[in-house]
């Protein structure tokens, strides 16, 4: 069992409230997933041509300055650094391939949790309430966010196994469920040159979507084909640069609720996460149908 929440604000004027509304959504799902928690937030776009990376190192107080300086030397230009607990967001004038190669060579112990222009992914082992507190989620601003509370069933309880998983630039996935064919699928994707950080089944789902989109599929096409290629139970929420999407497998035994007002669209494993949102009492509320892609964006 896990908990998923997603919140998409339809109006820019509401962006200062994102964190304040998201935090109780995440905390309400703590008893669906007390092992670990994570969230992806979309805000503070990097300047044109620059790349925003979220990096993770398990050591609190890790020397991120040295990494930022090294990147600044390697790739000429200002490097912007912001540290949050065990994560750091770095904006650098480099391509994704250049940044990955440099980090892999100089700091192989640092993991990249997200890559893009707006996305930042933070995740941590521990009670969701504690994660929300230590990352001061309530103070975050932004256009949309996804979050996950994890109760591990398929693999170990570590920060690396936690969600969200990056599925490409400005894309991420949170998953409630379990996949049965992830080992075979992982091997197939590895043959296509993909690498995986863990033995987690959800990471394979994220890798699958990344691979399909790298082949030229749209997000919607990749999700449609996942209904054929992924064997197992899933409710997915997928963050995109300007919105988010929701998909349940054909059996749809993993719960999901959607709610929409003029101001926001919210997705959660249970209505408890949505109940506190302003206007929830008058929201249109429904259960997403099986094997059906739902997507929202501002464009």
């Amino acid at each position: 069992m896990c908990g998923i929440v997603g919140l998409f604000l339809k109006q820019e004027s509401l962006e200062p409230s994102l964190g304040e509304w998201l935090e109780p959504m995440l905390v309400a799902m703590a008893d669906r997933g007390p092992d670990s928690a994570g969230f992806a937030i979309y805000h503070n776009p990097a300047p044109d041509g620059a790349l925003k990376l979220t990096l993770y190192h398990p050591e609190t107080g890790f020397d991120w300055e040295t990494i930022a300086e090294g990147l600044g030397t390697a790739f000429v230009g200002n490097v912007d650094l912001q540290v949050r607990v065990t994560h750091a967001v770095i904006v650098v004038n480099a391509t994704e391939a250049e940044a990955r190669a440099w980090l892999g060579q100089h700091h192989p112990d640092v993991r990249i949790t997200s890559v893009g222009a707006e996305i930042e992914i933070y995740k941590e082992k521990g009670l969701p309430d504690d994660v929300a507190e230590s990352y001061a989620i309530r103070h975050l601003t932004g256009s949309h966010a996804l979050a996950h509370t994890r109760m591990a069933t398929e693999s170990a309880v570590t920060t690396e196994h936690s969600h969200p998983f990056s599925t490409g630039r400005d894309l991420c996935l949170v998953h409630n469920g379990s996949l049965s064919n992830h080992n075979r699928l992982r091997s197939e994707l590895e043959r296509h040159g993909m690498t995986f950080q863990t033995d987690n089944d959800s990471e394979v789902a994220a890798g699958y979507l990344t691979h399909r989109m790298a082949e030229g599929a749209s997000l919607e096409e990749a999700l449609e084909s996942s209904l054929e290629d992924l064997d197992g139970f899933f409710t997915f929420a997928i963050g995109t640069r300007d919105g988010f999407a929701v998909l349940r497998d054909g059996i749809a035994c993993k719960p999901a609720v959607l709610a929409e007002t003029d101001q926001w669209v919210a997705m959660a494993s249970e209505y408890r996460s949505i109940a506190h949102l302003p206007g929830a009492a008058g929201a249109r509320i429904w259960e997403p149908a099986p094997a059906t892609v739902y997507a929202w964006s501002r464009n």
Partner: protein
Amino acid sequence: MITVDLNCVDIRELNQRLHDLNGDDGRNPWRIVGTDGRHSIAVGLNAPLTVVVEGHVGYYCAGMNQHADVTVNGHAGPGLAENMMSGTVRVTGNASQGAGASAHGGLLVIEGDASSRCGISLKGGDIVVGGSVGHMSAFMAQAGRLVVCGDASAGLGDSIYEAELYVAGSVGGLGADCVEKDVTDDHRRRLAELLCRAGIDADPGSFRRFGSARTLYNFHVDHAGAY
């Protein structure tokens, strides 16, 4: 009227207060507010209480109900009125998966839509759905009736035993061993009576009836000696 606000009283305390009335004649109606999608509201009641729940509820609302009349003014999460024995449970909105699962008796009314697996393993209760039901509804249903005023999704009545299914709208596909059957005057009369009791305005003449073809039955009394 006794009003309980779940922002002030926790679910265990509420349910204990209701269980303390088991065997009572329960004349005082109860009103539950502050639901916010909480789970297990009004489960295990065993007295002819009238309970009105204001707002959306989470998992297992009114589960194992006996004798009580529970109304939810809102939507319900998974497992609504699961294993109900008697009494009435009514939801004015929609219900999530597994509504009325394994209900042995009583009447469950969902005025909106019900999701997948509505009436799964039904054992004798009656379920009336004002809207549509999701896939695999009435899976392995053994006895009782499921009445759907809207549409039924794929796999209706898969591996059904002796429950009766009525659908007014379209059927997305019948499950294994589920077939359409004749509707007699007697069926229509009993269906009209059930719709009336459920307070659902639908024409009994507009329903088709489905049930078991009995081809999956492996046990036959003539072979009793073989077991």
